[in-house]
């Protein structure tokens, strides 16, 4: 029997936590908005990855054209905004577009929210759910700390950076967000998968099938090589069934625990239906050549959910999807990724109807959720750590250029391709003292190029608290701050000024104040919530 006796154990490299590559720092100059429509020169410390030539260009270059004063956001949509019944009926303005981009993507890049406003609610949603062609990635391609291109399948942590970069640069943000949702829904971890490439292939499966038929997606996942390894579907044979996938496909993927949807006997019978998948092993290739072996499949009659037949793996998926308790599971779970409060019975039933009548299609349910009043009028929810990071990088205009994001995201509780277990990440537990500390430090790293050098810079000696806050908010891409937070930040700005006791402190303390304001905005509820 060709059952492998011992899997090659992929040694998990130690996280290189504080590896700091050699850098050459010097002072450069650049133009930055002065907050009043004009530009001013700002000095900053530039980190060269290679030793710079003597006398190299250090900025600031020609002064950019004076900016027009901030335009008042257009109030009236430029075209009609027809909406389906049950959809959100309020004004679809800047705030609503930002929320949509945060929940169905990774926040706006400057100007993007107003583009969506012009499309109206339904147009905006459909621009996300019905992208045409393949995704376009714009901006500088991702690099590691040494300035080299990524090797996602081979270098430690580059898988995480590769996906993070797609989130930051894609013009189809909902595809990436849905891939992240399916990664959480069908949570598979590199911990028990022999090759990182198989994880990446699985994420591409999620991208390709993110809006289509759930049954098709479910079937594709069931025989996906990474999933077959992760839940032992490749070690499930007629003479020795392994129940692992049979249980989780019901409990976590399609029906839910504690609802009376299935019994222990259903799990054992379903495991028999799923028998027959195998693969080969080799030292160089790991697990490969995944295939169905008819001789290893149990061809007897299995009774699942009271339905008897000679079921196979495709039937196993169909039986779950046809189960009367599946639609409510599906729509409630999908809803929970976008809205923090559960849907009312009538909303849920409406979504179930949409789902079943469409033949288990994902897109119509998704569009209904993204147009629902609850998304726009309901309370905020905590961003997953990777979503917060991608949102921050987009707002700051920073490409993926450091491996620090790997261990920082891990400490914040979300290393991509390494969910904690098969139930995925626990959305109710994104924040505790350990993970909050990681988010704080993530903000510190994100601000690397934006922060000022308090001791070498000739920082303004006259900047007022209001000017300081305006500058910090502009650096973050002008997010809306809750009024009590704005008040606190202004109060901080004033308190800081009272600490200036000597003449030499005027500039440096203001520079420290600016760095603190940047930091505080990054760790404020306004940044953490979506």
């Amino acid at each position: 029997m060709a059952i492998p006796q011992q899997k090659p154990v992929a040694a998990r490299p130690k996280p290189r936590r504080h590896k700091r590559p050699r850098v050459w720092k010097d002072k450069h100059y650049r133009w930055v908005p002065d907050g009043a429509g004009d530009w001013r020169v700002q000095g900053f410390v530039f980190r060269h990855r290679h030793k710079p030539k003597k006398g190299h260009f250090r900025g600031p270059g020609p002064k950019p054209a004076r900016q027009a004063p901030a335009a008042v956001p257009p109030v009236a949509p430029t075209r009609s905004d027809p909406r389906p019944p049950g959809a959100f009926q309020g004004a679809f303005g800047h705030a609503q577009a930002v929320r949509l981009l945060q929940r169905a993507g990774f926040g706006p890049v400057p100007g993007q929210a107003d583009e969506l406003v012009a499309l109206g609610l339904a147009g905006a949603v459909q621009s996300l759910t019905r992208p045409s062609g393949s995704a376009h990635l714009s901006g500088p391609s991702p690099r590691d700390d040494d300035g080299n291109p990524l090797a996602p399948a081979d270098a430690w942590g580059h898988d995480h950076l590769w996906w993070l970069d797609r989130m930051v640069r894609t013009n189809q943000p909902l595809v990436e967000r849905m891939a992240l949702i399916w990664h959480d829904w069908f949570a598979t971890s590199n911990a028990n998968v022999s090759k990182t490439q198989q994880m990446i292939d699985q994420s591409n499966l999620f991208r390709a099938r993110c809006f289509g038929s759930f049954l098709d997606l479910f079937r594709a996942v069931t025989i996906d090589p990474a999933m077959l390894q992760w839940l032992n579907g490749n070690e499930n044979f007629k003479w020795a069934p392994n129940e692992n996938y049979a249980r989780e496909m019901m409990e976590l993927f399609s029906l839910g625990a504690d609802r009376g949807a299935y019994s222990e006997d259903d799990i054992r019978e379903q495991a028999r239906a799923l028998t027959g998948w195998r693969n080969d092993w080799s030292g160089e290739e790991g697990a490969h050549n995944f295939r169905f072996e008819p001789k290893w499949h149990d061809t007897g009659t299995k009774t699942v959910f009271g339905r008897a037949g000679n079921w196979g793996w495709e039937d196993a998926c169909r039986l779950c999807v046809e189960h009367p308790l599946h639609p409510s599971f599906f729509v409630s779970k999908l809803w929970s990724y976008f809205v923090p409060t559960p849907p009312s019975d009538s909303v849920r039933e409406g979504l179930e109807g949409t789902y079943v009548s469409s033949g288990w299609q994902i897109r119509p349910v998704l569009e209904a959720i993204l147009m629902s009043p609850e998304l726009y009028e309901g309370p905020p929810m905590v961003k997953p750590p990777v979503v917060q990071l991608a949102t921050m990088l987009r707002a700051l205009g920073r490409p993926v250029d450091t491996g620090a994001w790997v261990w920082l995201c891990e400490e914040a509780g979300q290393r991509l391709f390494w969910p904690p277990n098969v139930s995925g990440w626990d959305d109710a537990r994104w924040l505790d003292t350990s993970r909050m500390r990681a988010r704080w430090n993530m903000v510190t790293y994100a601000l690397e190029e934006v922060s000022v050098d308090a001791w070498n810079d000739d920082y303004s000696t006259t900047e007022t608290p209001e000017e300081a806050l305006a500058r910090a908010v502009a650096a973050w891409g002008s997010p809306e701050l809750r009024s009590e937070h704005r008040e606190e930040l202004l109060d901080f700005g004033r308190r800081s000024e009272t600490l200036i006791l000597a003449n030499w402190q005027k500039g440096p303390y203001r520079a420290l104040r600016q760095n603190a304001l940047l930091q505080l905005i990054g760790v404020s509820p306004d940044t953490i919530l979506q």
Partner: protein
Amino acid sequence: MSPRPSHHSCCDGYTRSQLLRSAAAEAGQGLPAIEPGMPEPAGTGLSRRKFLSRGAGLALAVYGASKIPLSAFETGIAQAAQGDKILVSVFFDGGIDALSVLAPVGDTRYAQLRPNLALPPGAGTTFAEDTSLQWHPSAAALATLHGEGKVSAFPAIGYDHPDQSHFTSRHYYEIGELQVGYRTGWLGRYLDAVGDDENPLQGLSLDGSLSPMIATAEKPVAAIDSVDGYDLWSRVSDPIEAEMFRSFARFGSLPADSPGLAQVRRAASQTDKLRQDLAGVGEFSSPVAYPDDWFAHKLAGLAAYIAVGLPMRVVTVRAPGGYDTHADQAGDLEDNLRRTCEGILAFQRDLEARGLADRVLIEMWSEFGRRPEENGSLGTDHGAAGCAFVIGSKAKGEMVGEFPGLSSLDEDDNLRVTSDFRGMYCSLLEQWLEFDAEAIIPGAAGFARPTLVKA
């Protein structure tokens, strides 16, 4: 960028570890008195502040004192001087195979059900209280402690109508009740009842995230992934830094109009408190050798924390590795179980060397045991009754519930349960934490209380 701005590396490691070393030397005597007139640490620019703990009658010097609220230390020392007890929970994540940890080599069915995975008789130490059982060779460290009368073993713990979902069963153990949807853990409810409003260290997860077991409704609790320190980096230094943290703390204390906002506020507030409480703690040394392993390192840090009197009541940590051994069980289990048991033995020896062993009790648990019959992947599927251990100098050291044997299994062909985990919880609450279990565990009156703590 330097990840640790220079002003943060100021805490003088040498003096701090000296302090901890002195604490170790004076173990059992409370914290060390620092001689008057001791010089300030050179070159750090830090002042040393000294204060007298009213509760303990001891003088304590703290370095880098501008960041340490002395009151927090004073509370901790006062509690330590009163001999406050600490419960350490160690979780085997994934459902550890009880039939390997305490292998029923004397049961004739064992080798039949486990043709590939059964441990051979004589491979490990015989379990003295039931000679049909044998410790896994990797659990030798646990066998040593058992031989010293410091381990109470539950060979078949669980509950009626066992649920074989990881998540449901683990949830039951975490909340101390057979219900889904509870928001607080059983130890969280204990902390809500006895805990302090200002001390997040009272419930501490040495982990990247908070254990649901210590989730509270009201009182602050904490998680720290590294025992080597807890600092928040920024490009801001004093005096502006102190004002920045004041604003961060205010983000945490403003009113919230939604659960999501409340969650962020709570995290900000607790993060800032923990930052202050742990500002003086970082490097430590141990009086005994620990295995070179992150799990052991966490326990070494925990022992040092206890020795300096940090005010902890309940601490949770996950055993290294995963125990959901559906395939290739033997190798994974051998390695992970060894790391766990050797770490626990070193921790116990450390506490004994420091004279703190009477203050600490360890509880080891898992969400279920595994199916007696092995599967075709050289692994085992989810089962019912599992094993648990209560370890410490004060542990009663007697087996709780018999081993039920493999000849009559339950309706799902799983090991029958001979003790209820909620009975263990009631005993831990009443005998160790000295708190009425009725207020914590629903239906507590209905559970037999095994004697877990030496009189």
